[in-house]
């Protein structure tokens, strides 16, 4: 298994993630990667409406958001979250990577886009990039995943 240097906040705490996807297996797959990166799962949601409620409840450092979901789609959820929390850091994770889909998500306030199936090394680099402009999080890795809690 690949090893990744842990992505930590500036206060040396694990980065907290909200994982949003209507497929429980897609969520588990992403969570497996988050753990490889030394992160912590703040919450999970299976649709856009629940994602908004979970964001307000958990105040995560990063949201990983699917696009096609029941009740409320990811792009609308991004718009609503960013309207209330302009500093929210949301990365879209979707099978469908049309240019128009990506542009719509970025226009509504998403920071980046990653296409499924997600490659851990690609997600890692995107998270590093997104965290690098976060005043509360350290973009640079400081330890190998698992070592920082020792």
């Amino acid at each position, binding site marked *: 298994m690949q090893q990744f240097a842990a992505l930590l906040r500036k206060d040396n705490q694990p980065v907290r993630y909200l994982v949003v996807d209507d497929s429980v*297996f897609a969520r*588990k797959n992403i969570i497996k990667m988050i753990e490889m990166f030394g992160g912590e799962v703040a919450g999970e949601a299976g649709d856009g409406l629940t994602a908004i409620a979970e964001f307000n409840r958990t105040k995560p450092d990063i949201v990983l958001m699917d696009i096609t979901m029941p009740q409320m789609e990811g792009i609308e959820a991004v718009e609503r979250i960013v309207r209330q929390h302009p500093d929210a850091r949301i990365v879209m994770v979707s099978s*469908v990577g049309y240019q128009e889909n990506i542009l719509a998500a970025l226009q509504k306030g998403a920071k980046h886009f990653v296409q499924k*199936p997600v490659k851990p090394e690609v997600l890692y680099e995107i998270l590093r990039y997104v965290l690098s402009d976060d005043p509360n999080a350290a973009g640079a890795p400081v330890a190998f995943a698992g070592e920082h809690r020792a």
Partner: protein
Amino acid sequence: MRMELIQPFINAADAVFAESLQSPTKILDLSMDENTYRRKGVAALIAIKGDIEGRVILDLSPEVAMKVASHLAGEAVPSSDQVVRETVCELANMVIGNSVTLLNDQGFRFKVFPPEIHMNEEGLSGSADTEAMVIAIETPCGQAYLNISMHYLHRRRNERDSAAMSVD
């Protein structure tokens, strides 16, 4: 049937299985089918309508679906119809998402409908005038089958192009 419409789906299926299971896959067999499709396991059917039209079926046995589910989850998953259904749906969404992204970026416009899951004993009919290509893929979890029936709808594309020209 035009290979340029089929190839993105084959490439996407190959890539999705290889990437999701972190192991190489192999295309075992390609064949043409003009009859009603008989499932081999649990099938997700996704319809596409627009400049190109047709349908794609991803078909896995429940045993293969359970192995994929456990791999995706990173732990053994208790077997159930719900898990099988959800796994086949997620794989079908990834295959379709990756292939339609390529076709969409080539300028084709179409709507992709949500996957319909078929677990009963009925066959899945195609339209009378289209043949399908069936592809068997060997994965580390077992065999998966892709059945693709796709064709251009020149009329809609021409109509759209002429409408765009008249706006210009």
